[in-house]
């Protein structure tokens, strides 16, 4: 039996198509997922992300514990700032990708993917042993709403912001504020490639905030958006999805995200779980095992997760699609795929995706597929 979010009744009343995702019953779409996608690109979308895990790490040595547990140096993160990072196994494999918010000198909020939240909480607790730090999984107490799209800031202002000036909140900033009179942690983060906000609130406030944002956003073209749109939005933005582009069998370097790993300075190396394996992965970066690329299909059939990437000339398998979808923005199917390290790729190389037995030509492109005008 899947868990439901505090907004389950709202989704049902909106006639959403619900889907089981990571043990949660979540809205896949409310109407046309392409229209929801385009609303986020052109105006704004409202997402229920209450399935995500909220794990708090607090205490005098909270920063030191996270420095040890994660691949980034969270002690260097300023209060009211956020960082994208990863939890890696000792062998360098990615256990989850995370956003960590520093709420106070001794208080961090770690946001984990729903499917990994239990594991992340357990790993953080184990890795915090010996530090003066407490790890608390408060996922059940929190709901998370996201307003994403170019009109997001106006919509929050229209809903009414108190106790804070969100105009000064920069990308990857976080601060407490009242939105429509409801106490929230407001972060300028997201997973869509657009400007936007994520609002962490008490579970009991979720329906009230949803209604207030819906009403305030209506004149700006805000519409509820489901997981289908969220997936095509993040794919266009070239953002990895755990379970697709990131797995425990891959290191951050495989995914082209080695920049999130902080080994420290030459004169002051830092230690963290997975360091030795990740150093080896970094040092092999000149001859990588594989690399993550973008593919744009020349045809209309859609490359999907798990489909082989082949050399069109001889059918040799040279890689595998990790995520694929029709792109509403490009009007063509797009995909991310891992290619074997010795495949150079490029329009001239004649790559194709084996789509259920038929080879459909694709072009290799740089990620992301879509970048907003800033």
């Amino acid at each position, binding site marked *: 039996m899947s868990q439901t979010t505090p907004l389950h009744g709202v989704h049902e009343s909106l006639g959403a*198509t619900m889907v089981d995702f990571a043990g949660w019953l979540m809205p896949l779409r409310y109407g*046309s*997922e*392409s229209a929801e996608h385009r609303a986020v690109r052109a105006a704004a979308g409202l997402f229920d992300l209450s399935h995500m895990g909220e794990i708090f790490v607090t205490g005098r040595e909270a920063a030191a514990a996270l420095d040890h547990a994660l691949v980034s140096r969270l002690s260097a993160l300023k209060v009211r700032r956020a960082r994208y990072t990863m939890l890696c196994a000792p062998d360098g494999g990615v256990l989850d990708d995370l956003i960590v918010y520093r709420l106070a000198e001794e208080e961090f909020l770690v946001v984990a993917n729903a499917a990994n939240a239990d594991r992340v909480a357990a790993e953080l607790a184990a890795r915090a042993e010996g530090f003066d730090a407490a790890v608390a999984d408060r996922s059940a107490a929190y709901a998370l709403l996201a307003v994403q799209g170019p009109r997001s800031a106006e919509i929050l202002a229209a809903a009414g912001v108190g106790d804070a000036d969100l105009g000064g909140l920069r990308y990857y900033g976080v601060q407490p504020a009242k939105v429509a009179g409801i106490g929230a942690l407001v972060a300028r983060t997201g997973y869509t490639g657009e400007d936007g906000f994520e609002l962490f609130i008490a579970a009991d406030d979720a329906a009230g905030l949803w209604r207030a944002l819906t009403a305030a956003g209506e004149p700006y073209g805000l519409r509820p958006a489901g997981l*289908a749109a969220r997936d095509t939005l993040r794919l266009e933005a070239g953002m990895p999805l755990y379970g697709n582009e990131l797995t425990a069998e891959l290191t951050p370097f495989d995914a082209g995200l080695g920049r999130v790993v902080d080994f420290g300075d030459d004169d002051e190396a830092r230690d963290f779980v997975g360091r030795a394996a990740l150093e080896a992965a970094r040092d092999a970066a000149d001859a990588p095992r594989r690399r993550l690329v973008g593919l744009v299909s020349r045809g209309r059939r*859609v490359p*999907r997760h798990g489909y082989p990437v082949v050399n069109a000339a001889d059918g040799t398998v040279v890689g595998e699609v990790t995520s694929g*979808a029709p792109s509403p923005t490009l009007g063509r*199917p797009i995909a991310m795929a891992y290619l074997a390290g010795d495949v150079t790729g490029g329009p001239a190389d004649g790559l194709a995706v084996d789509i*259920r037995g038929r080879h459909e030509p694709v072009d290799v492109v740089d990620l992301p597929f879509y970048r907003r005008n800033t």
Partner: protein
Amino acid sequence: MSSIPEELGYSKEHEWVAGLDDGRVVTVGITAYAAEQLGDVVYVSVPEEGSTVEAGDAVGEVESTKSVSDIYSPVSGEVVEVNQAVVDDPSLINSDPYGEGWLFKVRTTGEAEDLLSAEEYAALTSGDS
């Protein structure tokens, strides 16, 4: 509840068949229920004009943002016409599944078999929608 026109026949694979009573050329499409389950349709392939299809054969495919499904011919016969408009604009399957979203026409041979009535199809698709 999606619409299920009374006068059509239905397959368990969510195709509809029109014109069963009028003669031997029938029109085939995808039901509104199936279109709703699929979401936005972005690609559809149909059998070639002039080809022969057997009831139950996979004769095409329909892709949406999140899924891909085979299209099964609910009847046997010769494909006499295909809807190029829906191939060019597959969203017609979402906007007008029983009208402009039709897929192909078949000159049937023999009896159509085992098609469901509107009532039976409604029973098949209730409960999980």
